Structures are given as C-alpha cells and as structure tokens.
C-alpha cells in the first residue's frame, strides 16, 4: 500500500485499527528476545497451530515486550467488549489449557496478572475504552495495570507501542498515531520550527551523555558540507542494558519516524542505523521495518509528495563496546577499526566520511514523534527542571520484579527499587545500585532518595548512561564489582591511548591484590591517582569515564576495601582467595547431592550421615552451595 497523502494515511489508520481491535477475539504473545528466551516461540506456535486446526474465528498475533520480563512468557487476551487480560508465566504446557478456555470464549482466572481497561493511545487523540459498564466477578477484582506496584509509577512514551502492536505491521504503527507527526512536520513546519520544538521540549540524549538534542540538530543544520548524515546508535553495549533492543523489537517504526523528522530538520537525505549484531531479532525487525516503510513510500524519494527524500541503511556492529562512542561508530561504518578520534572538530561538522553527521540513540529517536505529535509543552510537563520526559531503565540484578520500566525523570532510586522492582529477593538487604554501565557508578543506600535525572546522578559520581540499572544486595562484593568493570574495560579499550590501555591494567592488578587479601592502604591512594591519570589522559569517553566504577565504590564502600586489605576478609563472601566453604554437620542430612556435583571429589561421607569437605582439594566453585537444599553448606 502506497502512502503519499493524508487520505492514504487516514485510510491506513482505519485499516490498522480494525486489525488492532477487530470484532473478534485476539490473542497476543510477547515475542521479543526476552519472551523467546522464556519459551514464547513454542507458546506462539502452539496457539497459532490450534487456531488454524480448529478454524478459530479469531486472531493470534505476536507483539513486543511490555516490560514485565519477570513474568515471561506473556499472553494477552483481547475480547471485544471486555478488558484486555494479561496472563503471565504461560509456559507451553499451560498454553494448551489456556487455549481450551479462550477458544471456547471464556476468560480463565488462572495465571491472570492484570487487566487493562483502556488503551491510552499516547499519540492518537485520547484513550480507547475496551468496554462499557461495570465489571463483574473475578474480573472486577483483577488488578488493573495501573494498580500494580510495577506499573504505578510508569509512563510509557518511548515504549508507547511495545506490547500493543505487531512490530512487523506498519498499519498497526499508523493506527496508533504513527507517521502523522511526520506528515505534520513535512507539510506544516519549517526545519527551524522542528528544531525549536525539540529544543523547547527539553529532550536530552538518552544514550548516556544527556546532550540537548535540539542543540545538536541546530549545529548540524548550520554545518557546511554535503551530504549530511543522520545516524542512529543501536550498538547497545552496556552490559545490563537492553532498552534499545526492546524498543527495536517492539516498535521499529518509531525509530524510523524519529530519524525522518530529524533528517528533515537537519537537511539530510541519508541515514544509517548501526545495530549490534548480537541482537539477531532486532536486526531482522529493523530490516523488515525499513523494507515496509520503503514499499509504502515513507522512506525513499518525494515522501508525502513534499519533495523530501530520505533513506536508511543498516550497518551491523562488530561487537566492540567502544563503537558506541560517536567517532568510533563512524569509523566502523566506514569499514575501519573502531578507534575514536579527538573531537576538537565535532562530528556535527565533520563526522562520517568527514561530512556533517548527527548521531542520536534509539530511545532519543523514539521520543521525537511524540514531541512533534503532542507538542513541546505537553512533553515539558513530564520530568524535572533539567531533565524532561521519561527514561527507560532495565531494572535487573538482585531485584524481584526484573524488567523494563519507563518512568518520568525525577523518580527516586528507592521508589524504583522498592516499589517498581518490589525490593530485593529472599529478604536480603539492598546494598547499592549500579547505573550507567561501565562508565557509571555504584550508588549506595544512603543516597537512594536521589531523584534520577541527568544532573543529580552526575553529582553522585554516576551517569544516567543508557539506562542499565543493576540492583546489588549484600551478596555482592564491591571490590569484585570494580574488578568486573575493569576486566570489561580492559577488554574493550581500543588501545589507542596509553593511560587507558595500561593504566586500567595496572588498576586491575592492584584490585587483584586486594581481593587476595594483599596490598596496603597506600595502594588505595595509588588507585585514586591512577584513576585521575586515566580520566585526564584518554581521548574518548570510554577511557575518560573508565575509573568511575572504581572511584564510586571507593567513595561509598571504602570500609569494604579496607576489610579486604586489613582483615583479609570479603564481607560479601565472593572473593575466592578469602573465603572457605564448610559443611555444617548439624544441618547436613547426608543426601549426597553435593558429593555428586563436586568436580574435585572434595566432599566425602556416607548416605544419611553428615558429609565433610576437604578444604585442601576445594576450588571454591560453589557447586555444593548451589545444590544444597538444607542450607548446610556455609561460605564465609
């Protein structure tokens, strides 16, 4: 279907809405990578096959991830005139039983997580109610999405379509208001007006730096040179962060539309998306989205008959973390090793192939259509003084409700962890939150009232980063965490600047000493001075921020370092050289589970008699600790 006018767009929207909310029952399966990992593909195959075999008068469809990752696989039932019902942890085994009920037109109560009374349709003029009147029976008692602690504080703007549409269906995207902002942009706004709206909205780069997007666009527009390039950074390298993957897999057109609007504002006709090859599904989803936008005439020449041309190429990353840095990313697109260069000439002036280039990340682009569609004032109302809008975080690690959450800027760490995340599992104690990836830092409990926005995180020694938020409890050793990040950065340092290449290695050696109970307090000072040297002496942000995990753990958890150095103790019982595993004979009932698992044959003992562990053979792999159901294996 060609979409070249507002009539075409309206028509597409009508068709799309009929597909989104048909007059017959519909079953949705969350099929982003997280869902698939939990078995969603088998669930979908099963439901789809049943529907076909039984000639069911309904639709079985796939959709993206709504964020409830801890309850995957998710299945939703949308019956006309009924609220949308979300079922959690629908394993293939359960899916069969669920199908029997749904196919018969019944809504079963088992496995229900929540209901949704209306679709708020962020972009498409007001909510769409799913039913009239009052709910009866268990449906009335089923919590609404907004009643769940996990959702109460959330507001989905960038994730507006994730979990609602089939990401491969362009019409679904249009049905929820997509590509209308692009139409408005191309037909009623000048490029300067677009830039003004984005600047006034206060949108800041979501990739980590938090640079004002509108300002960047304006500089690129002013820059001399042709052609100009519009780039999307989808090389999500931060370990513990997956919001970009989820956005791409759930709503790829939002990114394309954002780039189209940006390209118009900047005066560009060529775009690139640099996407991580480790995300095969995201790559495929983007390929399909680009193809369908091209077929519809939304990418290519003379878009909406306005004479505006823009097309996008996809580039697969090579698995180098440093390629998330703008100049390295551009070098990589040019087919070179991804080594950053000094930025005394900005990339907006001389970037890709020495031409003016504007790079924003996935989440930033996904916000753009909403800002145009709803207006800068609407957007400015959300968030804090210096940080407008929402931010997606991947809330992971030692937290009950693991998932993807989009909250307005300014929510406190405490609310995010304790309310949205449901706290730390197994009644262990919250210790710190790691935010900002390898360039960020660990923020301790004392500061958990801190509102999360660009500036307050910066003051606390961390950065917003792309939004990975890893919760740590008292089973996490901070020296080990610092070591972990240094390992990562040593691996990923491109090697161009000596302070980064060698300084980090030396820092790692000192940490190794600490975790072996060696070293002295004087080494802590050496660490600090080395950190400063690495910060000052590195060209790019990778080196410039590399010491952050070490510095913040030193700043907030110095006593833990001192315990390693002075008492040769690892309080969290993680550092292998400082811990011993023992078996408590009073708790051990001689089940032999650990004997079977021990790779060293270090555990001996007869059946039903307390076992003993030979510490001289033990390699501290923790296999016995893991399998013991009686808490008889102790580590200290």
């Amino acid at each position, binding site marked *: 279907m060609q979409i070249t006018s507002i009539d075409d767009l309206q028509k597409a929207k009508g068709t799309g809405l009929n597909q989104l909310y048909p007059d017959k029952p519909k079953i949705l399966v969350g099929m982003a*990578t*997280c869902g*698939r*990992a*939990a078995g969603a593909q088998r669930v979908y195959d099963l439901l789809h096959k049943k529907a076909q075999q039984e000639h069911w008068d309904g639709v079985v469809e796939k959709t993206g991830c709504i964020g409830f*990752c*801890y309850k*995957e696989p998710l299945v939703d039932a949308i019956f006309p005139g009924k609220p949308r019902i979300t079922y959690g942890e629908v394993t293939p085994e359960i899916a069969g039983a669920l199908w029997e009920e749904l196919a018969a037109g019944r809504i079963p109560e088992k496995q229900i997580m929540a209901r949704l009374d209306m679709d708020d349709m962020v972009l498409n003029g007001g909510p769409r109610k799913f039913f009239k009147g009052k709910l009866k029976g268990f449906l009335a008692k089923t919590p609404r999405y907004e009643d769940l602690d996990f959702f109460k504080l959330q507001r989905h703007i960038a994730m507006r379509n994730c979990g609602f549409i089939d990401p491969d269906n362009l019409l679904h995207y249009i049905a929820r208001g997509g590509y209308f902002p692009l139409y408005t942009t191309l037909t009623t706004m000048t490029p300067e007006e677009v830039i003004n709206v984005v600047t006034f909205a206060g949108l800041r780069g979501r990739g980590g730096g938090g640079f004002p997007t509108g300002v960047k666009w304006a500089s690129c527009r002013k820059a001399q040179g042709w052609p100009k390039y519009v780039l999307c950074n989808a090389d*999500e*390298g*931060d*370990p*513990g*962060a*997956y919001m970009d*993957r*989820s956005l791409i897999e759930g709503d790829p057109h939002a990114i394309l539309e954002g780039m189209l609007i940006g390209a118009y504002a900047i005066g560009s006709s060529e775009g690139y998306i640099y996407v991580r*090859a*480790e*995300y*095969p599904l995201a790559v495929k989803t983007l390929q399909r989205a680009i193809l369908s936008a091209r077929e519809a005439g939304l990418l290519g020449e003379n878009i909406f008959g306005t004479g505006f041309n823009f097309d996008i190429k996809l*580039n*697969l*990353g*090579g*698995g*180098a*973390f440093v390629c998330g840095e703008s100049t390295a990313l551009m070098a*990589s*697109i*040019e*087919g*070179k*090793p*991804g080594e950053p260069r000094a930025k005394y000439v900005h990339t907006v002036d001389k970037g890709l192939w020495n031409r003016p280039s504007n790079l924003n990340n996935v989440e930033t682009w996904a916000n753009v259509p909403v800002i145009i569609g709803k207006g800068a004032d609407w957007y400015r109302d959300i968030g804090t003084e210096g940080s407008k809008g929402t931010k997606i975080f*991947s809330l*992971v*690690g*030692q937290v009950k409700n*693991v*998932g993807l959450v989009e909250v307005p800027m300014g929510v406190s760490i405490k609310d995010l962890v304790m309310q949205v995340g449901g706290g730390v599992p197994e009644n262990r104690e919250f210790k710190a939150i*790691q935010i900002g*990836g390898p360039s960020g830092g660990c923020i301790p409990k004392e500061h958990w009232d801190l509102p999360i926005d660009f500036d307050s995180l910066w003051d606390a020694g961390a950065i917003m980063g792309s939004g*990975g938020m*890893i919760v*740590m409890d008292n089973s*996490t050793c901070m020296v080990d*965490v610092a070591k*972990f*990040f240094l390992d*990562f950065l040593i*691996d990923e340092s*491109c090697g161009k600047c000596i302070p980064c290449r060698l300084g980090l290695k030396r820092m790692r050696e000192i940490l190794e000493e600490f975790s072996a109970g060696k070293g002295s307090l004087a080494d802590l000072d050496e660490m600090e001075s080395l950190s400063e040297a690495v910060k000052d002496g590195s060209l790019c942000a990778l080196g410039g921020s590399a010491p952050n995990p070490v510095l913040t753990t030193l700043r907030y958890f110095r006593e833990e370092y001192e315990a390693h150095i002075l008492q040769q103790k690892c309080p969290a019982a993680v550092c292998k050289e400082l811990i011993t595993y023992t078996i408590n004979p009073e708790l051990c009932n001689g089940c032999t589970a650990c004997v079977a*698992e021990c*790779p060293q044959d270090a555990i001996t003992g007869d059946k039903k008699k307390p076992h003993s562990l030979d510490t001289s053979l033990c390699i501290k*792999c*923790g*296999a016995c600790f*893991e*399998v013991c159901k009686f808490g008889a294996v102790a580590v200290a």
Partner: protein
Amino acid sequence: MSVTFKALENILEHYPPSSEHLISALQDVQAKFKYLPPEAMTAVCDHLGVPLSRGWAVATFYKTFSLEPQGEHDVAVCLGTACHVRGAHNVYEKFRRELEITGQEGTTRDLKFSLRQVRCLGCCSMAPVAQVDEEIHGNLSQRKAGHLLRTYRTR
C-alpha cells in the same frame, strides 16, 4: 566447509569494490565459514581494493570475527553485569571444566563446542544466561549448565 572460489564469489558479488564494505563482507565470510580463513581474507581485500593489513586490523579489532575454526555448537555465556551479580562466573567455570578448555575461551578437541564469553545478550531478566547457537537458555546454575551440554552432546 572448505573454502571454494564459488562460495567466496557468492559473497563478494553483493559488494561493489569499495573499502566501506570491508566489515560487512567479512561478516558474511564469518557467517558462512564460522571463521575467517586466510584465503578468504585475501579474496575479500583484493576484491574491495583494501590492503591486506587493513583486513587483518579489522578482523582482530572486532569480536565478531574469529581467526580459528569454530566448533559445531557455539556456546556464548553472558558475563554482563546482571549475570555477574547472579553468579555467572561460577557458571562459566563449570562450562570450562566440562568442556576441558584450557584458556579463557576456546574450542573442544573434537570440534563439537566452542566456548566464549559475551557481555550482555540483553536477557538480563533471566540472568544468568547462555546462548547455544541461536537458542537462549536462562536462569542457569552450574547443574543446569551441565545438563545443557549433555543435551547438545547427544543431539
């Protein structure tokens, strides 16, 4: 799979002779042979008109590329932050012991498995995770890791 002229030609015909396609072309070679055979490198560089040294510079810079033949099954264990705090290191060591891999990463003698570390597969909600070929396995423990290898061994 042996490196044939035909197989290389099938890859190279998609790329006009320009240096910007170096990474993409090498990625195709990697996907086809699971590593970069030296003869393929020569062919790619010749075709695109880039010096061989540049080809190797790119190949050794990016993690995607492997210079050694890879095993039948690719076992990528995630050591991202979320997996790390949930004990991925012990799980990785279990894989290493089971597969008798002496270095940090490597391929088994029978070319059945290649073990490697990866930093974040983006499935943090199921940490710790490992990806075997295309399939992701979540909530791993040392014991589950052992099971997992056994199922692939008998496949």
